[in-house]
């Protein structure tokens, strides 16, 4: 049974407008920094999504900024109430994505909106698309900031959708980091490069919102089937023009081409999800394009990575945390929930647990640090069930009061990291080396009950009848909140 979700970005834009979460900008906006600055300010102020109707130098093109930078937009994308709480959205996401995967279906090209315009040969020119200069000081214009790249494993034919940023170098060339531990990195550097074979790719820009969520999710389920699970219906795909890859038929813009083995070109710097320009300008993976297909009046999606909160931080935190929840639940760990704080730029995860045996926090940390999810975060905070994992104040209180500064902190050295960690030494960034840490905010089980500190809060230290009386009379006392 399909959920009440959107088959493309255009329907999603209309839904945001209906929920007063869209600002349509009729005034012409410059792709050179102005558009990026608007989207950045939107993220920092948590304002409505900007929908740019006129882009300087690019008549006929439109752009849609910060498509999923808030939980409200995520709830709308999921077809839920706009004011749904994070735990509700989380439970719905887990419910939808733990059933059977839903296979995609293939549409005839004539029925696929993304084939309304086809540029090949000399016409396939990246500068004919309004790629924004997102931040001043970036290494180039980034066409692909909220998108995904489709690739296929040379041996298993497994298909991957992943978000790999792409900087325009010249008319036919894009460049970007493909980290060796990523799914596409393992395919390309592990299988195509040793055989000196170019790898076909298709960059999908302006997909439906849930395909974007799926492309961010570190799930073992193929992302197109994962999208189908989130939608409750099969995704409609269509064949590419120049290779045998398949892409969402309702996407706005598709860029097809090949990833070139044994050639690297300098890419970056770029304002990244950590809120800094951290990873160095250095030789990175090269994409040569062969074709561009797009809908009439295509709408480019634009994300602006920087200080919290943008969609990269929010959705990656959301899905990373929930994949960890699935992992811990699959191992029978008595967790009460998992929440990754988007403000931590998906570096810090909070795990709630019933501490029914000693060193359960270490067991949790060992599991999540040992999983394929681990390069993307480095701090695990384990709290007991009296801490609300979704409440930052409560988590900070637990961290500051329950975590012993020596016994409560366990360091994990020599981990896999990313070049994007601002705290890492330059040499560690170069080699994707990291380190991780556990903050155990549970009281030891061997403490006697009489030694256990009692949390002093309204909910905890007053009898039920007093709480109810105070709540019933709150406005009568004169309080307005």
């Amino acid at each position, binding site marked *: 049974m399909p959920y009440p979700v959107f088959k493309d970005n255009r329907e999603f834009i209309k839904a945001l407008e209906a929920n007063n979460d869209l600002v349509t900008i009729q005034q012409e906006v410059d792709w050179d920094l102005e558009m990026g600055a608007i989207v950045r300010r939107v993220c920092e102020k948590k304002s409505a999504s900007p929908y740019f109707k006129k882009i300087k130098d690019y008549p006929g093109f439109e752009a849609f900024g910060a498509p999923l930078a808030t939980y409200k937009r995520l709830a709308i994308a999921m077809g839920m109430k706009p004011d749904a709480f994070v735990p509700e959205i989380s439970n719905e996401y887990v419910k939808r994505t733990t059933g059977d995967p839903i296979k995609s279906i293939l549409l005839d090209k004539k029925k696929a909106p993304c084939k309304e315009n086809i540029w090949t040969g000399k016409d396939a020119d990246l500068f004919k698309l309004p790629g924004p200069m997102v931040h001043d000081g970036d290494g180039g214009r980034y066409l692909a900031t909220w998108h995904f790249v489709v690739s296929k494993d040379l041996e298993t034919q497994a298909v991957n959708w992943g978000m790999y940023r792409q900087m325009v170098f010249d008319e036919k060339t894009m460049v970007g980091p493909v980290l060796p531990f990523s799914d596409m990195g393992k395919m390309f550097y592990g299988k195509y490069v040793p055989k000196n074979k170019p790898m076909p790719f298709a960059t999908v820009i302006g997909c439906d919102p849930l395909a974007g969520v799926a492309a961010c999710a570190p799930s073992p389920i193929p992302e197109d089937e994962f999208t189908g699970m989130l939608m409750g219906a099969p995704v409609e795909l269509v064949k590419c023009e120049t290779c045998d890859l398949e892409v969402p038929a309702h996407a706005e813009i598709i860029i097809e081409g090949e990833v070139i083995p044994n050639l690297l*070109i300098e890419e970056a*710097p770029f304002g990244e999800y950590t809120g800094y*320009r951290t990873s160095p*300008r*250095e030789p990175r993976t090269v994409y040569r394009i062969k074709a561009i297909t797009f809908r009439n009046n295509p709408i480019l999606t634009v994300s602006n990575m920087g200080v919290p909160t943008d969609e990269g931080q929010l959705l990656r935190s959301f899905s990373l945390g929930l994949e960890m929840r699935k992992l811990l639940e699959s191992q029978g760990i008595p967790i009460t929930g998992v929440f990754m704080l988007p403000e931590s730029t998906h570096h810090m995860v909070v795990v709630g647990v019933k501490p029914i045996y000693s060193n359960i926090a270490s067991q949790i940390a060992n599991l999540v640090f040992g999983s394929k999810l681990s390069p993307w975060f480095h701090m695990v905070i384990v709290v007991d069930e009296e801490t609300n994992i979704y409440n930052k104040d409560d988590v900070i209180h637990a961290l500051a009061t329950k975590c012993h500064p020596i016994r409560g902190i366990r360091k994990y050295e020599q981990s896999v990291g990313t070049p994007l960690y601002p705290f890492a030494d330059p040499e560690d960034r170069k080699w994707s080396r990291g380190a991780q840490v556990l903050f155990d905010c549970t009281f030891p089980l061997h403490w006697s009950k009489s030694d256990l500190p009692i949390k002093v809060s309204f909910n905890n230290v007053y009898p039920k009848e007093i709480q109810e009386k105070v709540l019933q009379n709150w406005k009568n006392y004169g309080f307005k909140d």
Partner: protein
Amino acid sequence: MARKEYDTFVLTDLALIPEDKEMELIVRDLTPADRRYKYRSTFAMAMVSKSESKYPDLLWVRLGRGQLQEKPWSIKIIKEVNKFS
């Protein structure tokens, strides 16, 4: 006629950049005739000078994290280098 302007990212100590010698570098075109092509990158054989006036075109310099240096250098582009043939 106005001078063309380019920029480049320097990843080493600026003092180590050789002046007045042919070298290969990546430059971005900041003043193309068609504005849609602004920031187009190319490999170029060129000579550079830290003097703003020595060569025909201006070259702005950025460091590895995009930090723009206050004063431009100058550049003479000898030819574009095609890495994809």
